C-alpha cells in the first residue's frame, strides 16, 4: 500500500487462529490502521491477498466483508451521534435482521421476531459493556471514554466472528482499561471467535493478547508471545522506549 | 354583494411579471373609467387581481380562490398559454366566462370551450396581416428566424415563416433560445454566416432588447423585424441606438392615430407616467369587453354574460373587437411600426380578419 510515494505497509503477512487474541502494535505511522483498512476493504492493497475463513476477500467491498463476519472499529471515534446508546447498538444488529424489501413493507411474524430478538440482544450488549446507565442517552452526550465503549458495543452487535479493534482503550484511564481488558477476555470463545487488537496501552495488550505482532515502517518486526515481545531489543528501541528500560 | 366582481389572473412575480404588471395597469385603468361612468348594473366594478406566476398549478389556485372565495362573475387571464390552458377547464366547470387578452396559442380556441374568449391576436392572424407588407417593403429574399423557446415564440416563428415562404422568401436559419438568455453572440455568429437580408425575431422586451442590441454589437446591419412588445418606451430605452429602423408587427402601438387611442394614451400616461404598450392595451381591452358584456347581460348570471360576450362589438383604441363562434376576436386593427428617432412610427395598419 503506497500513498503518493510513501509506502505505508509493505510485504506484511500474518494470520489469526480461532480462539485467539492477537495484539498488533508498532510505532506511530507504522501502518496498523492502514492494515485494518486493507483487511476490511476500505483500501485496496496493491499486492497480496487477504483470506478469511478460507475465502479470498481481497478487494471486496467493506460491507461484504463485514457480512462474512469480519467487523472492525475505527481509530477516530465513530458513532452515530444523534442516536441514543441503545439505538446505536440496535442498529448494529443490521445483519442479523436483514430482510427483503417485500418483508419490509408487509412484515410477517418472522420479521417481528427478528426485531424482538435484536432489541433484547442490544440491551444485553449495552449491559455487558457497562453502559447500562447511559442506555437512553443520545451518544453526543457521552464523554470520550464512554464513546470508545459504545463503539465496541456496536461492533459486537454485528455478531462478528473476528473482531478487530483499533485503539479501543484510548481515552480510558489505567483503571478503566483494566476492567475493559477483562471484558474483552470473556468475549473470545463466547460471543466472538477471535480478536485482533491495536493498542498503545501496553498493560492492556500484554494482559489480553495470546500473541503479539509488531509492525515497524510497514513491515513485520517480530511476532511472539507477550513476554517474548517485552524482552525483544528491537521492539524496545523502536516502540517501547524508556518504558522497557 | 354591492359590487360586481371581476377576477384577473396574471403573473405578478417571476420572469414574466414585467408584462403581467402592464396587463394589470391597463385593466385597472379600464375599471376606473367604467366606475367613473357609473359602473355596471348600478354597481361599481371591483377588480380582484391574483398572482398566477404563469404556472398552471398556481393559476388554478388563483382561479379557485377567485371563484369560490371572491365569487367573481367573470374571469380574465391568464398570461402564458400554458396557464390559460390549465384554467380553461376550471372556468368551464364553474360555467364562468373567461377572457384572455394575451394568450396567443392558436389551439386554445379550438378546444370547444364555450366559456372561453380570446380578445387577442394569434400569430397566424398577425402573419397573415403583415407578411406581404414586410416582404415588399423590406425587399426580403432570405430571412432568418429567431424565437424565444416557448409556445408564443415558436408560434410566431412558424406562422411568419410559413406565410413568408409562401411569398417566395427563403428561410436560411431557424433558431430558438431560452427565455432569460442574455448572450446571443453564438447565435448571431451563425446568423452572420447565413447572410440573411432580414431577421425575424419573436421576443419580449427583455430578451428582445438585448438581442437587437447585440445584433448591432456584432456589426451586423441586417434588417430586423418581429413580434413582441417593441413599440414601447421601455424597449426603445433599453435597446438604445440599436432600435433605430427596426420593424415590429403589434396589435397595438401608442402612436396609433385614432381619437380613441389618443385619449387612452393620455389617460394611461397621466396615471402611470409611461405610454401604454401592447400588454397595457390588452388588459384595458379585456376589462372593457368584460364590463360591457356584463352591462348588456343585465345581470350577473354567467350564462347571460357568456351570451352577451359572444355578441361583443367593442370599440377599442385600436379598432373594433368582435368574437367568432369559437371565441376568437377579430376586426380590430394591427399595425406595423418602425422605430424612428426613438419613437414607434406606424407605417401600416390593417384590420385583423376572422380566421378561416
Amino acid at each position, binding site marked *: 500500500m503506497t500513498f503518493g510515494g510513501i509506502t505505508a505497509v509493505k510485504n506484511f503477512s500474518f494470520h489469526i487462529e480461532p480462539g485467539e487474541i492477537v495484539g498488533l502494535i508498532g510505532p506511530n505511522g507504522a501502518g496498523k490502521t492502514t492494515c485494518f483498512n486493507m483487511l476490511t476493504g476500505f483500501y485496496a492493497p496493491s499486492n497480496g491477498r487477504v483470506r478469511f475463513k478460507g475465502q479470498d476477500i481481497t478487494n471486496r467491498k467493506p460491507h461484504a466483508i463485514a457480512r462474512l463476519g469480519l467487523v472492525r472499529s475505527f481509530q477516530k471515534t465513530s458513532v452515530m451521534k444523534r442516536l441514543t446508546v441503545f439505538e446505536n447498538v440496535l442498529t448494529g444488529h443490521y445483519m442479523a435482521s436483514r430482510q427483503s424489501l417485500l418483508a*419490509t413493507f408487509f412484515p410477517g411474524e418472522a420479521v417481528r421476531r427478528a426485531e424482538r430478538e435484536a432489541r433484547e440482544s442490544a440491551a444485553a450488549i449495552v449491559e455487558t459493556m457497562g453502559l447500562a446507565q447511559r442506555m437512553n442517552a443520545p451518544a*453526543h452526550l457521552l464523554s470520550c471514554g464512554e464513546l470508545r465503549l459504545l463503539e465496541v458495543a456496536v461492533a459486537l452487535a454485528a455478531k462478528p466472528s473476528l473482531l478487530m479493534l483499533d485503539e479501543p482503550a484510548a481515552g480510558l484511564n489505567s483503571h478503566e482499561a483494566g476492567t475493559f481488558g477483562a471484558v474483552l477476555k470473556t468475549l473470545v470463545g463466547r460471543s466472538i471467535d477471535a480478536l485482533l487488537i491495536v493498542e498503545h496501552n501496553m498493560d492492556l495488550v500484554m494482559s489480553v493478547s495470546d500473541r503479539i505482532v509488531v509492525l515497524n515502517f510497514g513491515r513485520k518486526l517480530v511476532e511472539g508471545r507477550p513476554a517474548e515481545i517485552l524482552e525483544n531489543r528491537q521492539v524496545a528501541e523502536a516502540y517501547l522506549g524508556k518504558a522497557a528500560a | 354583494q354591492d359590487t360586481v366582481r371581476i377576477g384577473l389572473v396574471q403573473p405578478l412575480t417571476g420572469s414574466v411579471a414585467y408584462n403581467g404588471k402592464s396587463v394589470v395597469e391597463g385593466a385597472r385603468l379600464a375599471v376606473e373609467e367604467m366606475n367613473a361612468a357609473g359602473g355596471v348594473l348600478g354597481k361599481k366594478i371591483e377588480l380582484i387581481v391574483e398572482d398566477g406566476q404563469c404556472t*398552471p398549478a398556481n393559476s388554478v389556485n388563483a382561479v379557485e*380562490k377567485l371563484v369560490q372565495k371572491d365569487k367573481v362573475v367573470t374571469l380574465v387571464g391568464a398570461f402564458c398559454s*400554458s396557464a390559460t390552458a*390549465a384554467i380553461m377547464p376550471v372556468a368551464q366547470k364553474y360555467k364562468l366566462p373567461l377572457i384572455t387578452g394575451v394568450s396567443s396559442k392558436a389551439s386554445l380556441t379550438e378546444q370547444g370551450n364555450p366559456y372561453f374568449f380570446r380578445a387577442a391576436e394569434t400569430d397566424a392572424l398577425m402573419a397573415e396581416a403583415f407578411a406581404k407588407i414586410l416582404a415588399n417593403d423590406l425587399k426580403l429574399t432570405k430571412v432568418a428566424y429567431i424565437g424565444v423557446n416557448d409556445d408564443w415564440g415558436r408560434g410566431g416563428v412558424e406562422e411568419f415563416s410559413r406565410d413568408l415562404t409562401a411569398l417566395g422568401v427563403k428561410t436560411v436559419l431557424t433558431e430558438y433560445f431560452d427565455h432569460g438568455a442574455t448572450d446571443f453572440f453564438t447565435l448571431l455568429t451563425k446568423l452572420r454566416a447565413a447572410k440573411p437580408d432580414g431577421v425575424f425575431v419573436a421576443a419580449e422586451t427583455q430578451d428582445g432588447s438585448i438581442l437587437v442590441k447585440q445584433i448591432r454589437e456584432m456589426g451586423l446591419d441586417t434588417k430586423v423585424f418581429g413580434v413582441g412588445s417593441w413599440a414601447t418606451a421601455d424597449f426603445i430605452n433599453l435597446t438604445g441606438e440599436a432600435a433605430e429602423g427596426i420593424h415590429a408587427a403589434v396589435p397595438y402601438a401608442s402612436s396609433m392615430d385614432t381619437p380613441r387611442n389618443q385619449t387612452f394614451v393620455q389617460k394611461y400616461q397621466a396615471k402611470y407616467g409611461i405610454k401604454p404598450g401592447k400588454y397595457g392595451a390588452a388588459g384595458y381591452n379585456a376589462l372593457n369587453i368584460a364590463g360591457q358584456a356584463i352591462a348588456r347581460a343585465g345581470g350577473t348570471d354567467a350564462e347571460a354574460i357568456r351570451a352577451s360576450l359572444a355578441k361583443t362589438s367593442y370599440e377599442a383604441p385600436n379598432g373594433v373587437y368582435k368574437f367568432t363562434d369559437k371565441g376568437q376576436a377579430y376586426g380590430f386593427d394591427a399595425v406595423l411600426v418602425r422605430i424612428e428617432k426613438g419613437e414607434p412610427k406606424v407605417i401600416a395598419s390593417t384590420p385583423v380578419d376572422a380566421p378561416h
Partner: protein
Amino acid sequence: MTLERNILLAFLAGAALLPFAVSDQYILHLAIMALFYAVLASSLNLVVGYVGEFSLGHTAFLGTGAYTAALLSTQAGMPMWVTIPLAGLVSAVFGFAIGAITLRLQGPYFVIVTLSFAEVLRIVANNWIAVTNGPMGLAGVGQNLFGDVAVTNKAGFFLIVLGIAAVALYLSYRFVYSNAGRAAVAVRENRYVAQSIGVDPFGTAMQAFVLGAFLAGLAGGFYAHYISFVGPEVFRFAFMATMIIMVLLGGKGTLIGPLAGAVIVTVLEEYLREVQELRLTLFGLIVMAIVLFLPNGLMGFIALRREQQAAKPTLNAAKERTV
C-alpha cells in the same frame, strides 16, 4: 413510534371525513393541493431525512410521473387507476437509473448533480416536441378513473389523493421503522460505521431513493389528471423550493414533519394572498424567521419541548461538529 403511527392514523381518518363536512370547493381544492404536496414532501423526506443527502432534483420524479400519466391518458386514453400507478413505476425506474449515478456522490456534489438531472429532463421536455409537445405542454389530460367513469368533483379528487397519501405514509412508515430504515439512518449518521456493520451504503440509499421516486411519481401522476395540463414547468426549481421548505419547516427525518409542513405552507401561501403584492416578500421573511426560531423544524421543536419537559438533558446534537 406508536405515537407517530397513531397521529398519522388519526390524521387520515379525520381527513377522510373532510369532503363530507365541507362543501366549499376552494377549501377542498386547498386540501387536495396540501395532500398532493404532503406526498411530495414525504417522498423527498425519504431522501433528505433517511439517505441524509440533499436532493435538489426531486422534481425529476414529479415531472416524469406527470408526463407519464399525461401521455398515457392523452395518447392511449388510459384511466387514472392505470396511469397513476404506472407513473409511480416509471418514476421509480428513473429513480433507479439516476440513483445509480448520483448516489455515488456525497454532499454538495450530490446536491448539484441531482439538480442537473432535473434540469436536463426539463430541457428535454421543453425541446422534444414530438413526444412532450415542448413548451406547449400536454393539455386536456382526461379525468376518468375506471373506463368511462370520470371524476367530476373535487370530493372525488380529494379521496384519490387521500388514498395516495395513505399509501405514501404507509410505505414510509414501514420503511422508516424497519431494519432497512435503521440502516439508512446509519449511513446518514456515519458512513464508515454503517459499512463496518454490514450495511451497503449504496444499496440502502438506493432503496430510499427509489421509494422516494416512486411516491413522487404517484404525486406527479395525480397532478397531471387533477390540473389536466402538464408542461415543462413541472421540472422547475419552484416546485423544488416549495418541497424543501415543507420538509425542513416541518422537520426532516420524521413522518409527521413533512405532512405538517405541507399543510402549513399551502395554507400560509394562500392566506398571504390577503396582502397582495407583499405576498411573496412576506413569505420569504416568514421562512427566514422560522429557520431562526425553529432551526430543526416544527417536529424538532416539539421533540425538544418534550425532552425539556421530561427534564432530560438536552443539547443541540448538530452543534457537535465532527471534522
